[in-house]
Structure formats: structure tokens, C-alpha cells
């Protein structure tokens, strides 16, 4: 894992990094090149526990790639991802998500031909009935069913929390864009994650639902969950996030509170499309 001094600098120079608290999720010097195109060129930041942290940056800054690397969908060329003090670099998505680091996608990825309830009941890990033989044999199927009752209870509560319990038996493919976003978030929460990576959770969501969704995120944060969200709506980020990470051209540009970020020259330059030194 070679880290270039440059990328190191990009991380440590940024104001406010590591400022107080200890990060539940840390990335250090992530680098990733796709066939000669550099997507990540030294990304470093920490996400503090029980915060709403915004990840912003112009298009092509590497936000989604960062998500892909952190969640394990893509392996980085260099750098390290630390979650809960453990190195999780290169772990596959099923491993990271079962540890409690769960992502959602930019375009909601419902399991379209499954009902909302089936979507909700899929995630819980180590369900007994996931072993084929236990689901088949008469002697063990009872235990599988008992556990499914519990999973159903949890799924139902979560659907009620998001006010989509009336859609429980609908096919997920028939939901509207906003409802899909809600379902995706609710489904991710079925894993009882510590950290949620939300890729544009408000895209295509109408303003009143957005308000609603934000309330729920803040509620969940107050109950101990941590959110890292990619978002294009600057006002929303500045208003609701405790911490903001700004990326530009595959690097972390600035990390800090919304006030710190707002007053940072380089952020304005980045958004105006200049070459940032």
C-alpha cells in the first residue's frame, strides 16, 4: 500500500479532519485508476460516529467511486478503509454489509419482482432458513417459520416507521421514485447497520417527502446511527449535516463543519470549475 506524499498532504492539510470525536469510518489515501483514468487520487477522511456527514463535490469528483470502494464493490489500487477500528479494505459488499456498513444506490435498486415485504425480509443476516436443508426438512422447517415471524415483525415495524406499510404487498417495481427511496433506506436498516452510506437519497424525491426523510434520518442519528450521504443540494447539506467532506478531482479537498467549508476559498473555486492548487 503505497501512499503518495501528495495524497497524504491532501488529507492532513484539510481543516477540521479528525477534529474531535473518533471516526467510526476512516479512509486513508484511497487511489483508484480505471484504464488510465484516475478516479481517486488520495482520498482521506473520517466519519464521526452519530453524525450526518455530507460528501459533496462537482460531478466526477469521485464520490460514487469512493462509495464503491468503501462498500467493497471495487477494490482500491492503494489506501485503506477502516471501520470500527478494523481494516476492511477489499472486503466484498456482503462482508462489509454484514459488519454493519451498508450502502444504498444512486438509482434505487429495488428487487423489482419481489414485494415490498419480501424486499424487507431479505437482508437480516444468518436467517436459519437460508440453509436449504433447514427450509426443506419437516423437522427443521418449524424453526425457520418461527424466525420468519420475528423477521416479519421487525420488517413491519420498519415499514410503519417509514409510513409505507400500506405498500407491504405491492411489487417493489410498481412503487414511485420517492417510495423506492424510502424502501431502500428501510431495507438497509433491516441490517441494523452502524453506518449507512446513502448515495443521493433525495434525488427525485418531492420536497415534502424530502423533509420527511430528513426528519427520519435525524431521528435515526439521534438513536445512534451514522450517515454518510452524497448529495448535490448544497443548502440541504449545509443545513442538516454536522460535518461536510468536499471532494474534487479524486481528492479530499476540505473537511469540516458547514461553516468552515462555506468559507473555504478552494471549495468555491472547485465548484466554479477552476484548477485547484
Amino acid at each position, binding site marked *: 500500500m503505497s501512499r503518495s506524499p501528495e495524497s497524504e498532504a491532501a488529507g492532513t492539510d484539510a481543516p477540521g479532519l479528525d477534529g474531535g470525536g473518533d471516526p467510526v469510518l476512516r479512509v486513508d489515501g484511497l487511489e483508484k485508476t480505471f484504464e488510465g483514468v484516475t478516479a481517486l487520487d488520495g482520498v482521506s477522511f473520517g466519519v464521526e460516529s452519530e453524525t450526518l456527514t455530507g460528501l459533496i463535490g462537482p460531478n466526477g469528483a469521485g464520490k460514487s467511486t469512493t462509495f464503491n470502494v468503501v462498500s467493497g464493490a471495487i477494490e482500491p489500487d492503494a489506501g485503506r478503509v477502516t471501520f470500527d477500528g478494523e481494516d476492511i479494505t477489499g472486503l466484498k459488499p456482503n462482508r462489509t454489509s454484514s459488519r454493519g456498513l451498508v450502502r444504498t444506490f444512486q438509482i434505487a435498486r429495488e428487487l423489482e419482482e419481489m414485494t415490498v415485504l*419480501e424486499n424487507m425480509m431479505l437482508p437480516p443476516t444468518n436467517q436459519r432458513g437460508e440453509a436449504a436443508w433447514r*427450509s426443506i426438512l419437516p423437522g427443521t422447517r418449524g424453526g425457520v417459520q418461527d424466525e420468519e415471524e420475528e423477521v416479519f415483525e421487525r420488517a413491519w415495524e420498519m415499514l410503519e416507521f417509514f409510513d409505507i406499510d400500506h405498500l407491504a*404487498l405491492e411489487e417493489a417495481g410498481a412503487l414511485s421514485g420517492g417510495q423506492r427511496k424510502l424502501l431502500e433506506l428501510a431495507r438497509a436498516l433491516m441490517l441494523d447497520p452502524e453506518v449507512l452510506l446513502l448515495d443521493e437519497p433525495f434525488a427525485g424525491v418531492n420536497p415534502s417527502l424530502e423533509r420527511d426523510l430528513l426528519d427520519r434520518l435525524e431521528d435515526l442519528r439521534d438513536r445512534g446511527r451514522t450517515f454518510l450521504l452524497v448529495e448535490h443540494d448544497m443548502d440541504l447539506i449545509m443545513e442538516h449535516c454536522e460535518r461536510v467532506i468536499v471532494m474534487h478531482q479524486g481528492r479530499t479537498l476540505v473537511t469540516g463543519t458547514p461553516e468552515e467549508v462555506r468559507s473555504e476559498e478552494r471549495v468555491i473555486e472547485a465548484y466554479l470549475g477552476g484548477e485547484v492548487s
Partner: protein
Amino acid sequence: MSAPSDPIGRRLPDSAAAYWERDLVKILGTLGFVYVLYLFVGLLLGYDLFGQLNSLRRLTFLIVVYGIAALVVNLHWGYSGLFNIGVVGFMAVGVYTATILSRPVAGQNPTGSLPGFGIPLPIAVVGGVLAAAATGYAAALPSLRLRDDYFAIVTLAFAEIVRITFKSAELQEVTVLGWTFGTGGGRGIRTFSNPVRDFFDTTGQPLVAAVERLGVDGQLVSGWAFVFVLLGILIGTYWLIARLSASPFGRVLKGIRDDEEATQSLAKHTASFKIRAFVIGCAVLGLLGIVWQGASSGYITPDRFIPELTFFIWIALIIGGAGSNTGTIVGTILFVGMVLEGPAQVRRIVDEFVGLSGSVPTFPDGLAALAGGNVDPILLYVFDQTSALRVVLTGVVLIWLLKRRPEGLFGDRREVASSIDLEARVEERRGRGSEAAGSDSE
């Protein structure tokens, strides 16, 4: 309750439609319909009781064996999104393994044909099933990371490799560590005697005699008994797959089918689920190979296992609709009754009524006769080409489905992937919720 969504259910009056929604009614109704058609053809052709029963036996046999295979393809494709078009390959591995294991050891061989390992048949059958499962594992392991279409190519190629290997002269008869055995190469190999027929030739003989006293050929007894054994396997497979799909295991499979990456992001080790589903299906295919190809005729050749057979099985599934076990069975009944066996039935009728039986004209002769105003020879020519007609009919059916009902006749039926009745649970919740709301307002 939701209204029936399949084309048959929609056309029924409400009272009948409610019954139609029951799986068993759907299956038996379709089967009854096809039976009546065949009995009618039998009447036209002047079959006696034996003829009628025998024609139904043949039809049922084909429905059952195609049904088992189509159910497996439904598990692979309909529930898990695994595009397996190497179905015959796994059947071949199953039946060849069981055969070679059960052939008598060299020297103790009464028939003088190929020797084997002399293992008792039941153990050899288990061996064949395990071999098919193991081959499924070996075929799936390196290729599961591939996308649907590439996975399909791998399975097709695999099935061809199996067939060509069994056909190869090199393996016709080999001696390894003192054991002599072989595949018989292109000439094929004698399998094993059918235990069901053996039973009726020995212990069950009085039964056969009793039936013969009724004036029916005794062959029918063992024939139908064998069909019922196969039917037992079909029901077992149906039960197995229904149980698998209505469980957390099946839920993950469905998730993989819809979006593997998203399912993986929900803490599921998708590759492991895919392999397990694939291997379970391959084991059933191994058993099917043994009871269908091995037990029914007593002789197998590699050319029984051509890709065409796989495609026919797929078409049976497509007609019924992938993703529904009941649809799969209904589709199979229609496919076997109409497409697979239909042309032969029509041919028999044409033969009977157009006459000229025995001397089938050539195409030019038929045309010439047509020009002379005689339609009969060309009709006879056309309906003599049963296997070609089958393919033509298949094409027509596929095009019709593609245009009118791409999801198959019963493809949009919902089979919920849970071991508990979610619909009932939700209704219960809602009932409770509205009660609470009601008492609040009072």
C-alpha cells in the same frame, strides 16, 4: 383476492375462476383437457381400450419426465436467474455413471456386452445423482461470476463436451487398475433392467394376469406403474422446489435474479446461494437422466443427449411462465400434448382419412398432384414430417408468446418467497390497525 391474471382464468365466469386459482385445479384441468383431446383422436382412429390407455400412458410419461426437467429449469432460471442450457449434460452424467457403476463386473457378464463395477442398482443410482451434483458444482464454480448469457454459453458447451466425451472411441472400453469398463462410445451402452418391469415379471405376475383376464394387454400394468413411479418423482421435485422457493433461501435466490449486486450489498454471499441452487437442480437432473433415459428403454447412446432436448424443456417452461411451479407444469402439459406429440397425432388422423397410407409421396409429386387438383398427396407429405413440424410449431408458439405474452401463460403469478403466509399477517395487522383507529375516534 386478486383477480386471475392468466389468459384462461380471465375468460372464465367468476364462479369457475375462483376454482381455477387453485393450483391443483389448474393442473388437473389442463391435463383433463389434453386427455380428452387424445381420447377423441383415439376414437377417430378407432382405438380399442388398450390403444387408448397406451396412448394416454405415452402422453403422461412424456409430461412427467419433461415436467421434472422443466421444474429444475424453473428453479435455475425462474427463481435464481441461472441460465442453464446444459440440462441434458447433467442428465447424461447421471445415467452414464449409474449405468457404468451397475454393469456386471468383467467375466460375470452374461450378455457379453460392456462390463462395469457390479454395484447394486440403488447404490449406483445414488452414485449417479451425486456425480451429476458434483459435475454441476464443477461447472458452476468457475463460471458463476459470468453474466447470464455467458453462463448459458458455458453450460451449453459443457453439455456438448459431456456428450462428445461419452461418444469418444477412446472411452468405449478402458481398463484402469484391473477394472474394465467403458461408455460404449457412439454405439451406446445397455443400462440396467427396469426394477418396476422386473417386479411385474416376477412377484407382480398375478396382478398382470388379473388384468389380462379383463381383456387388456398385461404390458399396460407395468407401463402405467412405471409412469406412477415417475409421477412420484415429479411430485417430490415439485414439493422440494416449492419448499425451497417459499423460504429465506428462496428469497435470496429471487433477490439474485432481480439484482445480484444489490443483494450482495444486503449482506448475502450470492455466489454460495447460486452454487447451492445449481447443484440441487443438477442432482435432480441426474436422477431424471437415470429414470427417463436409463430405465425406460434399457439402452442409451450419447446422441440422446443433444441440445435439442434441452431446448424443448426450456420451451415447456417458457409456455407456462418462468417463476411459477404451477405454470411450469401446466406449460409442460400443453407443450407435450400440443407441440411435442401434436404433429404425430395429426399425422395419424391425416393418414387415416386421407388414405394412401404407407406410400408417402415426395414433395415434387405432391406439388404435381396439387397442380392436378388433388390435395391429398401434399397433405400427406406435410404431415409425414413430424419432427420438422414440431420445430415449425415450436417457432410459431414462441413468436406468438413473444408478441402476446412474453411472461408466459402464468408467468406473472406471484409465489411469495417466505415460509409463512405474509398476506395473512399483513391483513391481520391492518385489521388491528383500523380497530385501534376506530376506538380512538370514539
